[in-house]
């Protein structure tokens, strides 16, 4: 796909809503289109976190395999959402599996490329942090609610 078309797709993704044109041009240099069939893994726990994904279509399940219990899904993500936060911090390793639950189309961003651009351009880095932090906080809140097991019987 032409860079111009990809830049439009990146800037139209809800995660990058309102992104300035210059920042969009910088980001698109790290971006490519990705497609996953149902059942295909985006990444596995322990792998290097060298890409992150902005979902455009489909659904992805995040899970962990527990001995004796098989694969446990703890979150599903869909169109407009981001898969992958571990690329932000060392040691840049995934701490869970991500699997496409149906045909999934995404924008893949090269994490190393993104980190280098953020190091070189702190305005871009700050802009990205302002977008990733709410995602991180929302997932932390959701995790708290899940841990409280509010639907269980307590007493």
């Amino acid at each position, binding site marked *: 796909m032409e860079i111009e078309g990809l830049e439009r797709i990146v800037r139209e993704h809800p995660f990058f809503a309102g992104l300035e044109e210059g920042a969009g041009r910088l980001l698109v240099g790290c971006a490519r289109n990705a497609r996953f069939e149902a059942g295909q893994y985006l990444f596995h726990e322990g792998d290097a976190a060298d890409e992150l994904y902005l979902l455009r279509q489909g659904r992805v399940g995040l899970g962990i395999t527990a001995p004796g*219990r098989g694969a446990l*899904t703890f979150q*599903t993500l869909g169109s407009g959402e981001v898969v992958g936060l571990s690329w932000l911090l060392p040691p840049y390793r995934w701490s869970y599996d991500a699997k496409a639950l149906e045909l999934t189309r995404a924008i893949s961003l090269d994490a190393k490329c993104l980190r280098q651009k953020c190091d070189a351009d702190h305005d871009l880095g700050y802009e990205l942090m302002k977008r990733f932090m709410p995602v991180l906080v929302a997932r932390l*809140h959701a995790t708290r*609610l899940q841990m409280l*097991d*509010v*639907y269980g*019987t307590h*007493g």
Partner: protein
Amino acid sequence: MDETASPVALGAAADPMLPRLARVQRRRREAPQVWTLELENGGEQRGPGFEAGQFNMLGIPGIGEVPISLSGDPADPARLLHTIRAVGPVSTALTRLACGERVALRGPFGTGWPLLEAAGKDVIAVAGGLGLAPLRPALHALRAARARLGRVIVLYGARSPQEILFRRELESWQRGVDFEVEITVDHALGDWHGHVGVVTRLIERAKLDPARALALTCGPEVMMRFAIAALRHAGLGEEQIFLSMERNMQCAVGLCGHCQFGPLLLCRDGPVLRLDRLGGLIGRKEI
């Protein structure tokens, strides 16, 4: 949505403290420890109809009495459905009643969902766990009045796929055109293909138009606090959000004070309340 369907018009019992006996006609297991009892509401001891959101006091002589929301269709008041989780001595005894056995029943009590206000609006119902049961009568009423409504969005969260209430009904609504139904569970194994995560995250994905939305929410109070935050974030004001609150209801007529919530008595002023009536008390530790 029947404008005549108020407790007064339906004929409230002469003495609200006096129970009548109702026979168990059917019982159905909904989930582990959760059963729906269908009680007769006819014959010589015919009781009044009910508004979606109201509750009855169900009792077993010698054991006790508990408040249980009505979970059936208000358009079919001859069958009183109550969905009960076995957690204490009374609720456990209720879930063990066999067909033909009788229960002492008082009610209906309390306020209902604001269904008349829903006309012309988008309705978003957010339920968690057993909280779907008090919302179910409203969903039946909304379905009956579908032509007069905008979008009707039903978001439901359960602990696991095995603990989803009214699953067949939800799935049939998912296949239909009346409702947009999204179900999520907190945890799942590989054989579940639906959403996983907290129900409040579905609110953001629902892409609400805050100018025309009306939210009905019921579930554990912590869940409702998160739901309120998500609904506010989506642009809804306090006057657009209704909750069904739960406290220790005993007399059910506002006399004993066990269900006091700040200036309110939830058995009488609730259980369904508009958020602004709670005056910021929800989530306060002292209340």
